């Protein structure tokens, strides 16, 4: 039986907004198998980014459990979560979030260096090669196009050989051609490096490139194509 890389049980996240309670997530049971490429789709404010933040250990749930690579995140301290993120999770954000003062190579190896680990240079070079960034390895983020910056963000997410890659609207800031290009590459590298990927998007076309699509609406999972839960 295939094991689950990600599993949430009865996940709830409630915010208080004045006198109202906003239910960003309202009892989400969600699972992703190892090496699976899952797209989570939903309208703006549906709770898809909140789900990603919970899975990535960026935010803590109001109720419920989150397991990533067999570990329960709910009992972890802030420091443990930070270490967990740099070892087990690779993030790709809509606005790339590269450190502007570091060049591309430095950005890519930053999580590894922060962990005090030795950089697997051959592996990093390979990633850069696949993502067509070898030429740009010493350039600074500000001197690259959006597509190139997002490819660098993918490289950074892969470099520490994480258990899972979480991508939050990675094509949101890119034009259609660049968006498809980046998605194509993400799919290729995920396969090549046997990565599990959870992709958040509101773009149906982009979502079609995933192995499975999960639809989220009003903080709850709606059953759909290829649903596995």
């Amino acid at each position, binding site marked *: 039986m295939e094991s689950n890389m990600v599993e949430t049980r009865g996940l709830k996240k409630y915010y208080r907004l004045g006198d109202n309670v906003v239910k960003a997530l309202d009892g989400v049971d969600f699972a992703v198998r190892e090496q699976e490429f899952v797209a989570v789709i939903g309208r703006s404010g549906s709770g898809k980014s909140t789900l990603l933040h919970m899975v990535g250990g960026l935010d803590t749930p109001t109720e419920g459990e989150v397991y990533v690579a067999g570990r329960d995140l709910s009992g972890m301290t*802030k420091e443990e979560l930070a270490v967990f993120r740099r070892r087990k999770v690779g993030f790709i954000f809509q606005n790339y979030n590269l*450190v502007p003062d570091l060049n591309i190579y430095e950005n890519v190896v930053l999580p590894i260096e*922060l962990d005090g680990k030795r950089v697997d240079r051959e592996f990093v070079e390979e990633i850069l090669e696949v993502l067509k960034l070898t030429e740009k390895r010493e350039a*600074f983020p500000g001197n690259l196009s959006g597509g190139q910056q997002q490819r660098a963000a993918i490289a950074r997410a892969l470099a520490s050989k994480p258990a899972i890659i979480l991508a939050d609207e990675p094509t949101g800031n890119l034009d259609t051609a660049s968006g498809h290009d980046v998605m194509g590459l993400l799919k290729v590298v995920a396969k090549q490096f046997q990565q599990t990927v959870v992709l958040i998007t509101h773009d149906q076309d982009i979502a079609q490139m995933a192995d499975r699509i999960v639809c989220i609406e009003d903080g709850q999972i709606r059953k759909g194509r290829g649903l596995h839960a």
Partner: protein
Amino acid sequence: MLKNNNTQVLKRMAGRSLKSSRRQSATMILAVLLSAFMLFSVFTVGMTYFKMQRLQNIRLGGGEYDAIMYGVTDEQLSTCRENPDILRFGVHALSGYIDETEYDNTPEVMLIWADETCWNEIMAPARERVEGRYPVEEDEVMVTEYALEKCGFHGLNVGDTFTAVYGAGAVKCEKTFRISGIWEGFGEKSAFYVSEKFYEQTGLDPADVASGRFLIDFRQTLISQEEQDTFIDSMKLGKQQRLFFTADSAFSIQILTGIAGLALVTCLCAYLLIYNIMYLSVAGNIRYYGLLQTIGMTGRQICGLIRRQMFLIGGIGLAGGVLLGSGVSFLVVPSVVKSLGIHMGKGGEIAVSFHPLILLLTLLLTGITVCIAGRKPAKTAVMCSPMEALGFRPSADVKRRGRLGGSRHLERKGHVSSSARIWRMAKEQITKDKRKAGIVMLSLAAGMSVFLCITTILTSQARREYNYNFRDFDMVVKNGTMRKEEQEKRVQIFDQTVLDRLDAVEGVSETAPLCYAEITVPWEPEFADMWMREFYETWMNIPYEDEVEEYKEFPENFGSSLVGISKADFEALNAVSEEPVDEAEFLSGKTCLLYRNGLELKNSDVTGKSVTCAAYGDRAHTRTFDIGGLVDVNDYTALLGYPPTIIVSENVVKEFADEPIIYKIGIRYREEYDAKTEAAILSVLDADPHGKDYSYESRIEMKREVEKAQGNMMEIGIGIALILALIGIMNYVNTFVGNIRSRRVEIAVLESIGMTGRQVKKMLILEGLLYAGGAWVITGIAGTAVTYKIYQSMNYAGTGFVIPAVPCVCAAVISVLICVSVPAAAYRDIERKGIVEYIKTASL
């Protein structure tokens, strides 16, 4: 083009934006408030400080005057009367001395006549209490309790009488004096002030340099060197006459330059504080201004909006700063002074000074600073296109991105530890925006430099007055019988028993007695004649020719002294001599040194010649010395006669005279300012049969006197230093906190990819340390240089430039603590919101 009346909308928006971003507005208002407070308090408290310094000088000098002249002729008096720059002048004439009373043979109390202007106007600020009135009748005296006690009188009051033998010129007689008044305060307290009638009957003349002291007070506070020289020339001084300007008058221009320097650094601190905060705040709002541009606001309108915001912030901050400054200056400082129990006399009543100009200057300087500080960020806001504004990050520096720095090096190394990576990131934060980093360092350095400058000046102020004797002894005990006219009354009061007892006092590390023998210097054409001729020209009113025959025939009428000094004294003297003398020759008695006594003789006039002395009353007992040179140190003079004071080795004096009299003993303690040792020494001396015949000077006494004269100058000075240091620190805190807040998105990104809170804190603390280090380098180089310049311009006491170690080490430690704790606290503040909040912001 038609005028577009948008004033109302801009006004409304400026007000609303201040209300909506309360925290940011509060920070900016605080920055302006602090700057206005700093300028206002520094100017007010500074003005008070310098008034107090003036009061200290008045107290130490015994009156409010700018120049003192020895001897004044009628012609010079009329020149002074015609001089429009002179506010007032008065005569302070030596009228004799109290020779003895029935209780004390050596009272050492002078008789002085002060004319009306001198007593009522010039000396008044130095007095704290007066009872009775100034003497009018010939037998009346104005006394101090101190002088009465020196004469052995206790419990006398106004109207009481006492009898004493006094000397005045050639006269010496017993007289009953009536006390017409008693005063307390600062100045010549070891004196009885006498009436004009008394002075006239003594036959002394104010024109005589030995009697007349002429105190001159000028109208202006600042007297340039040129003006001083012109005045001295106009007085056409005789050869014996001397005219000196008091220290604070002589150096008034330099002192003012020093104050101006301090004010300039203070303004710089204020500017940096406001600039930093304004820049960070406006830079943080660039997206907002971008949005305004998007909806059609023109650059000019944005500028107008920012100007209005600055006006509101500046107005509130300025009012608050001036109010706070007034509160601190007029309420807190005086109450602190009061609680310290510092008493201000009637003459020297000093409230915290205020001048409308200070308020105007504060308003003007702060206003200008707000305008200048707001201009650059406003320009940035206008220059930024709407689209650029949406992606604007205040800390990013495009230029830096083109360079690769040390990345290749790091890469080549293969493995980079997490510490090295964090260290490098901290370093890059500093170097990526050098200008901003420079401003933060400069603002911290400016505060620290002012602190350094003021503590250096204050420490030297505290240090300068107490090193009053040549070899820096803690106490100097003098033989009081030395003042007696009759030779038989000058006796050995410090015999071997006293010396042994002093040596036995625990806490005494060295006793250095100086002995002398009375001598005559027989006339001879080569040296003695030349010396006496010069002496008469300089110091005497009668020509040498009138008395040369008497000198040749009765040299006993022209006595002098042969002073014996130790090897250590000789070494100290030789170190300051123009031409050092061979030690072996001096100690063996082959050569001697002569005290110059103010004569215009040069070393070349006397070296190569010899001087012969004879024992007083025994012409046959002589000794001849080669003259090694002239010295100006007057610590080695015993009885000053017309012929020279001959300084030789103590063994030579002991060989020459049977029992040379010890006239002075220098005593050094194991620990400076050891009051216990001083009390033990005094009890040894008081227990001696000659216990009433000695006098002493000590560092402890001197320190006490100076501290009393200084009043609360030190506290006020420390107050200024602390205010400035505090402002420097607040400036740093504000800037650093602003800097971290503007980087919160960047920090959140780093945390999202796995940087732990500890690592972020470490990076920020390292940044803080780098800032502190940079600020100390600037303070160490520029701050020390400025301090040295200001210090030298104000250093009329001539003390050496020494940076006070303890305050500086404390300041360094405190600055490091702050530089470390501020980033940690600022991080805690942004950490509370969590990463997601900022990641969302980044995603907008």
